[in-house]
């Protein structure tokens, strides 16, 4: 088990470094630089001065190594867009709303999705099943910004039940959270349905029935548990996945989260922030995969007790 963990960590670290190099190179191959003029030319002398100030006059590999060296000390530099704070401060500040939204979105969407998926699997080919797959498909196909707009129109403008957008008061969180929740809901409904159907088709379920166990116990204890194992592997990555969803939801609901920085850091060539955000996401994904790997191993007795898959 420990050897397994170490091997996984090594391969994740490898991936992380490769990705950081790719991103760094891509970032710098975007034409233009952070101090290009917006409307009228900045004098060359001034520009050179600023580039030097940020260390952008050095060769790329030096810049990369410097940056990664900083990263090793948890120093992600200072964002060009907001030089009054460090990247770490900026992210920890802007992340809070994104995390609240994304977190509650997944935590609400996932269980609902699981319930929907279960209902669909247990009532295969009934109207519940069709409803569930329609909801799942629509949830995945209608772009978030359209659902956002629809929700705002319905609940804020027409019904006037909820505020349209904004952040600090918790009642303003409701609509964006619903928007966020739709994607995990749809995805989980899909996954759960197929995982449940797979489990229901396995012979041991017949055996359980033959033993005279109640259907409830069969479903909630045995089938659920067995279906949960494959689901574990999608849970965490999905959580991270909400980070990119935040771009849309936050824009539509005026949430002061991290989302806008993903776009703006690319647009204004804010290299430090951009790199930090990309690394953050990459790191989170790596961590998520690692953790789900371990969770999978822990949940699955075949691996836990030392057998092989």
């Amino acid at each position, binding site marked *: 088990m420990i050897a397994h963990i170490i091997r996984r960590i090594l*391969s994740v670290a490898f*991936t992380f470094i490769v*990705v950081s190099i790719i991103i760094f190179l891509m970032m710098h191959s975007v034409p233009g630089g952070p101090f290009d003029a917006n409307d009228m030319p900045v004098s060359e002398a001034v520009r050179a001065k600023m580039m030097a100030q940020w260390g952008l006059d050095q060769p790329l590999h030096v810049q990369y190594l410097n940056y990664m060296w900083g990263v090793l000390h948890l120093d992600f530099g200072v964002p060009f867009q907001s030089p009054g704070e460090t990247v770490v401060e900026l992210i920890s500040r802007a992340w809070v709303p994104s995390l609240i939204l994304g977190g509650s979105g997944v935590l609400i969407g996932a269980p609902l999705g699981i319930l929907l998926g279960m209902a669909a699997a247990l009532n295969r080919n009934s109207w519940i099943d069709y409803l569930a797959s329609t909801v799942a*498909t629509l949830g995945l*196909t209608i*772009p978030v910004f359209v659902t956002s707009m629809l929700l705002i129109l319905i609940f804020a*403008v027409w019904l006037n039940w909820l505020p349209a957008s904004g952040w600090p008061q918790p009642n303003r969180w409701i609509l964006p959270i619903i928007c966020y929740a739709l994607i995990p809901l749809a995805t989980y409904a899909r996954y759960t349905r197929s995982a449940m159907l797979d489990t229901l088709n396995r012979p041991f379920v017949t055996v359980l029935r033959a033993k005279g166990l109640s259907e409830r116990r069969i479903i909630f204890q045995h089938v659920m548990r067995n279906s949960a194992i494959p689901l574990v592997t999608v849970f965490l990555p999905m959580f991270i*996945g909400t980070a990119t969803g935040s771009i849309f939801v936050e824009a539509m609901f005026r949430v002061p989260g991290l989302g806008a920085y993903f776009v703006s850091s690319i647009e204004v060539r804010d290299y430090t922030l951009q790199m930090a955000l990309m690394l953050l*996401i990459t790191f989170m994904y790596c961590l998520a*995969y690692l953790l789900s790997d371990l969770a999978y191993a822990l949940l699955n007795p075949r691996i836990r007790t030392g057998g092989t898959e």
Partner: protein
Amino acid sequence: MTDTTAPVSASGQRSPLWFAWRRFLSNKAAVIGGTVLGILILMAIFAPLITPYDPEAQSFLTEALAFPSATHWFGIDNLGRDFYSRIVYGARVSLTIGFTAALFSVLVGIPLGALAGYFGGRIDWVIMRIIEVFSVVPPLLAALLLGAITRGGYGTIVFIAALFGWVQVCLLVRAQVKSFREKEFVRAAQALGASPWYIIRRHLIPNSISPIIIGFVLSIPLAMMLEASLSFLGVGVPPPTPTWGQMINEGIDFMFFYWHLAVFPTAALAITVLATSLFGDGLRDALDPTLKGR
């Protein structure tokens, strides 16, 4: 016993495809999905024949933003273009993006997955690392970056969708091939002196048909959605080429009153994706002869 189940047709040989076709036909949802998809594809191909107006011509500027009517089924957009014509032409772009990306992902994903799964070892290690790289970078962010480098556009979108679409197919095929590699029919082929490529081509890939179809079908909506998202972020296909993503994005500006500008493209996208996945599911069931009437 099977003798009592399947009628032995007097004509002798039944073609496997004929049988797949039978199975497909008996799946109503799939038939509907397939029909809708077929109609969409035909509409895209024959767009000039079935649209009354040029999708890019601003022929109705004076009636701009008009609501659906008998002459303009889906109304007119803000630039005085017949919206029905634009939706129909939009199918061309969305479907091409979807299918090219899907095709590419299958073309790359299958061989790589088969290689990794069959040979294992170092090849597998390398391919798995590549896959890991792709799965830890969110496509949207990569698309934004790439879009900034290449300045966006049609090609970029197809490229990105393909770049990230193959991972799923590859993983599915790899897992499948891995589990089938140990099966005795593979051994049997080896015993007959078949080369690895022959085995991969003739045995392992056909047996992976269902993950392949799943992957193929999943990457179509992903690509279409990516186009829509990128349009929202301003890195989409440049106008005036009508694309659904672009239309949706513009449509939400008008959603307060001129609802048709958002509703029709969104519906078109949703229907296409829905039809594709129904069709894909049906196709998978039909092509897999081992799946009996479930």
